[in-house]
Structure formats: C-alpha cells, structure tokens
C-alpha cells in the first residue's frame, strides 16, 4: 500500500525443502510475495572431491570425479580423462572415442530430460512429468549398467580409452532406446507444454546476451539468449568435428527459451548418437598407458560442453604419480551465480522456477 509502512520477511528456503534440488539453501528476503533479495548459500553437499583427488593416483581420482554431477557422471569422467591424456600425451583409441561420444550424448539426453521434468515439478505440477523423464532415465541406466557394470556412476572411461568393450547387441539397444525416447519426447512435450506452462515460463527471468556473458553463464542458458556458442562445434574435442549437428539458439532468454533449447538439444543428441553408432570402427578400446602414470611437470585446462554448460578441468602435475592440483570448473556452480540478480522483483513462485531453470545439481555445485 503506498505510504503504509511494511516490513520484509527473511525466509530460509532450504536446505530441507522439497524443491531445492538437494540441499541448496537460499536466504530470501520477501516483501509480500515479491522477492527483494535471494542469496544462495552453498556447502551442504561438499565432499572435497578436488582435495581427495590430490591424494590419490591419477586413475583413482576417476570415481571421485564421477560423483560431481550425478545426473551425467560420464561427462565428468570424460573431461577428467581428457585432461590427463593431454597432460601425459596419451592418444585415445579410435573405437573408444566413439563409445565415449555415445555415452556422453546418452548422459546429455538424460540430463536435459530430468531437468525438464523437475522444472515442471518446480512450477507446481504433480510428479507426472518428472516421473515420465525418470522412467526414460531408468532405461538409460540399464544401458549404462550393461556396458560398465554400474548404473549411476559408471566409472567407465580410462586414460587412453574405455574400460570394457561393447557387449553384444548393445549398439542395437542404444538405437532402440533412442527410438523409444524419441516417441516419449513427443509424449512429454504434449504433457508439459500447456497454457499454464506458457504463462509461467514466458517472460520470466529474461536475460540479455550481455548480462549472460557478464554473469559467466554458459550452455543452454547462454544459447537461450541468442548467443551461438557450443564447445562441441566451436572448439571440437574428442571426435565431435566428425558429426553433423546443429547448435540450437533462441532469442528470448527467458525460462521458455531455455526449455526450448534443451528439448531441441535432446533431438540433436539423437542425431549424434545415430551417426556414431553407424560409423563406429572395430579395433582396440584402450591404448597402453605407462604405469605408474607420471605426467611431466606442467598444467592444462580442458573444457567440454556438458548438459549444463562449460565443464572444465584445470590439472597441475608436479611430475609425481598424483595430481598436484585438480580444479573443476563446474557449470552448475558458475551458473548459480546469476540467481541473485535474476530473481529480483519476481514472485516467490518464480524464484523456485528460476533456481530450477539454472539446472543446479548440488553435487556439481559443492563438489
């Protein structure tokens, strides 16, 4: 009411809250329903992955790195392996590159789908969309289990290749999975893209490209503002330059644009996997790696495009058999930075949706 004196309330959202994607803690300041300030507080899922890795041999750090982003663990492994390979000058077996790409894209699909499901959950739907995507993820986990022996944390990549060769019929399973997922994606979109979803997402948390770059946002959040940037195409790593796929951009930079980008990227991942399955050569799956592995003194930074943005590893070697320093540049953490600015003057309900749209995986944020 103009002229009337009103107070703001300081509200703790999280860590024990249904929609903070784990244990994020947001200190919010509300004026009525409107968010005046929201500070994310981190550290509730800190497992010291970087420090742990410094006290282990290079290959022993793999399982730890796996557990960063627990929705797409394979991407974490991939970037760590690439960093070690670059530092130690190890060449990767041709067949393994293809397997790596297939695995990475499979995990990207599930990362995007689970994100989309939980976004709708944050917008207040029942579990239906989330469980639709989790149901599909279940099939993917079966595939991962078949090839690596483990469901959630495959620990599958090795320096110079991968751990095990493809089991018989696995490639066909992958193609079947994609076919099913493609059908389910249509289903999912029919379910989710309702009028209510439109009014809740369009125009919410609008970002310009400049803002996004200033915040250091990467991945779908950046592409949703219209900036055409994808490391898979612009700085091709592994064998991504051999595949034909599009980089999806949208103009609006709001929640709806982010959603559109991610859903379209799932389709692009289908394309990449289909090409990889077609082209995969025979041959060894892992090159010989000196044991114990002692890279020369030096450092390197390797980055890949994860489902959430730029996932980088900064690795320093002092010539011993353990990493001197392992720094993970995780996209969730960097993108979370934008929340505080984005949510200002939006409603409380939007705050939850905006935090959800960033695609934070708390394991990835806190490491």
């Amino acid at each position, binding site marked *: 009411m103009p002229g009337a004196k009103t107070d703001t*309330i300081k*509200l703790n*959202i999280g860590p024990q*809250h*249904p*929609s903070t994607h784990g244990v994020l803690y947001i200190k919010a300041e*509300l004026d009525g*329903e409107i968010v005046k300030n929201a500070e994310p507080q981190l550290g509730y899922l800190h497992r010291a992955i970087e420090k742990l890795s410094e006290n282990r041999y290079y290959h022993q750090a793999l399982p730890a790195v796996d557990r960063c982003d627990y929705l797409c663990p394979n991407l974490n492994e991939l970037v760590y392996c690439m960093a070690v390979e670059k530092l130690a000058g190890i060449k990767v077996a041709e067949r393994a590159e293809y397997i790596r790409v297939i695995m990475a894209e499979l995990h990207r699909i599930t990362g995007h789908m689970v994100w989309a499901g939980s976004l*709708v*959950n*944050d*917008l*207040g*739907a*029942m*579990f*239906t969309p989330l*469980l*639709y995507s989790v*149901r599909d993820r279940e099939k993917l986990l079966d595939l991962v289990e078949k090839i690596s022996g483990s469901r959630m944390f495959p620990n599958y990549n090795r320096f110079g290749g991968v751990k095990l060769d493809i089991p018989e019929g696995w490639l066909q399973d992958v193609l079947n999975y994609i076919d099913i997922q493609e059908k389910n994606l249509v289903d999912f979109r029919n*379910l989710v893209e*309702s009028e*209510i*979803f439109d*009014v*809740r997402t369009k125009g919410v948390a609008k970002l310009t490209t400049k803002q996004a770059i200033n915040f250091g946002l990467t991945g779908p959040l950046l592409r949703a503002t219209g900036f055409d940037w994808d490391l898979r195409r612009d700085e091709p790593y592994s064998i991504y330059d051999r595949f034909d796929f599009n980089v999806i951009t949208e103009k609006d930079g709001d929640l709806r644009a982010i959603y559109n980008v991610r859903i379209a990227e799932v389709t692009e991942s289908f394309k990449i996997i289909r090409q990889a399955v077609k082209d995969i050569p025979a041959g060894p799956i892992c090159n010989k790696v000196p044991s114990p592995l002692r890279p020369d003194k030096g450092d390197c930074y390797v980055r890949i495009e994860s489902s959430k943005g730029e996932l980088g590893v900064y690795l320093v070697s002092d010539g011993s058999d353990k990493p001197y320093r392992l720094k993970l540049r995780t996209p969730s953490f960097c993108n979370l930075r934008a929340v505080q600015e984005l949510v200002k003057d939006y*409603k*409380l*309900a*939007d*705050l*939850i949706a905006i935090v959800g749209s960033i695609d934070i995986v708390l394991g990835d944020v806190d490491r």
Partner: protein
Amino acid sequence: MSPLVRLLVSLAISFPLLLLNVVFIIWFERKTLADIYGGIGPKHHGPFGLFQLAFDGMKLIAKEDVIPAKADKMLFIIAPFLVFVPAFMTFAAIPVYNNIYARNFDIGIFYIFGATTLIPVGIILAGWASFNKYSLLGGLRSAAQQISYEVPLLMATLGAVMLSGSLSLVEIVKAQSKVWFIVLQPFAFIFFFIVMLAELNRAPFDMPQAESELVAGYNVEYTGMRFAFFMFGEYAMLLVMSALVTILFLGGWNSPIPALNGLVPGITWFVLKTYLIVFIIIWIRGTFPRLRVDQLMHFSWKVLLPLNLANLLITSAILTVVYL
C-alpha cells in the same frame, strides 16, 4: 416420521456416508494419480489397497500433537474446525434424489456458498496462528484466492438459478429433467468448473499449499489429527462441490439416456456423475503445473468476471425472448 427421528436418521446416514466417500476419494485419487504417472499406488492393505486409509488414519491418531511454542494457541486450535465443520454442514443441503436429502433448504445454494466461505477463514487463521512464515504466506494466498474466485463462482451459478427460478437444489435438478443446464449454459459450466478448482485449492490453483515453494503452506505446523482434519475438510469439499456441479449443470439424478429412465435408479446417475467430476479434478491435478497467485487474480477479474457478466446479459436476453 416425526421430525426429530428424521433429523437423527439423516445424520446417521449422511455422517458415515461422508466419511466413506472421503476415504474412497482419497484412495481413488492416489490410485488415479499413480496410473497417470505410471506408478502403482496403495496396494498392500486390503483388496487394491482399499484399507490403506484406515491405516493412515490410525497412524495420524497415534501421532504426537505438536503446537509450536510461539503459536497463537487459541486460533491454532480453532482453525481445523473452521475447515472441517463447514464442509460437513454443506452435506446437509445436498440432495441425491427427488426425495432423498437431509434437508431441502429453500435457499440451498446460498446455504452452501455461505458455509464454504468460512473455509478460507479457517485457512487464513491457520496460516496466521502458526507463527511460521510459510504458513503466513499460504494463508494470505488463500485470502487472495478467495477474493479471486468468489464473485465469478456466484455469477456462474446465476445462470442456473435464472433458468430454474429457484435457489433450492431439488428444484434446480427438477428443472433439468428435459435439458441439462450444461447444454443451455455451457460457458457458465466452464467458468464454474474453473473457479471451483480455485475454491477447492486444487491444482492448478493449489497456491495456499504450493508444495514446491511453501512446503505445505498453511498447514506446515500441523501434525496428527489436526492435520488430518484439514485434509478431511478439503476432500469433503471436493465431494460437495462435485455434487454441486452435478446438480447445477449435469442434471443431477436425471438419466442421460431417456430409454433407461426408471430402469436404473436415479441415485446411480448422481453418484456416477459426481465421481466423473471428481475424476476430472484429479486428472487435472496429475497433469498441470500451478498458476501463480497474481495470475489467478488477474485471470478471474479481467477474464472470468467480464465474461460472466456478458453471459448473464445474454442469458437474460434469451430468456426474455423465450418467455415474452
């Protein structure tokens, strides 16, 4: 039958009927939702998990009753009463057949709307009394919601009242023996259905509870039986409002197929139609995300209210032409 005996009999029937229906609706909702999202739902106790609710009830009775130290104890205790009692009150006015009802009030519609207006008051009290910020926000959202839905709700009912010329629910159903009001008042039906969802605090208008942002909204601090009565009141209202839609627009106990008139008892149709509405409400909950509270308010003041007024004018114009 002496009036006193009639009163007691009506109580003796309607009270267990309410309990059974609420228990069944909760079971029905859990099963339907489970079907929608690909789960199983309750299955361990009794056939198809039908006795699940009995065990839930036992659990809730045996739960510790916690009242926060700083809460306003008086209001905290009153709030569940204000949610459950009106829901039970309205049950007195619902007719299920020509001559089967607890009481055929002359102003049945007023009675029901008057009683249900109390429910948000209970919710606001609960939100305020809990000394909890989430509850407070939930309670105020409930107030916002009542402000939004109440006028369109009353307006949407006017069509049916005009066509039947009565406020008695029995008379309204009798007026539909030839044509149901959903045919004569299709828009009023749609408006009524939408605002009814808001009245019931059901998805996509479940902002007072808004699990994803307010955890459980106004009933965050409630435990055990007190919590149970909030739920109970809510599901009782779900039943009552579904029955009201059936009475106002779907022809109540009138048979949809004229050939079956008299063969199938009218009460069967009434129950089937009511549960059809219940099913649709559950279906919506399983499908849609939630609107924001200001969006609901703008929607109902800037879209529903003008449309309702227009509907009213058109209806009266047509009636004038027909009866002149």
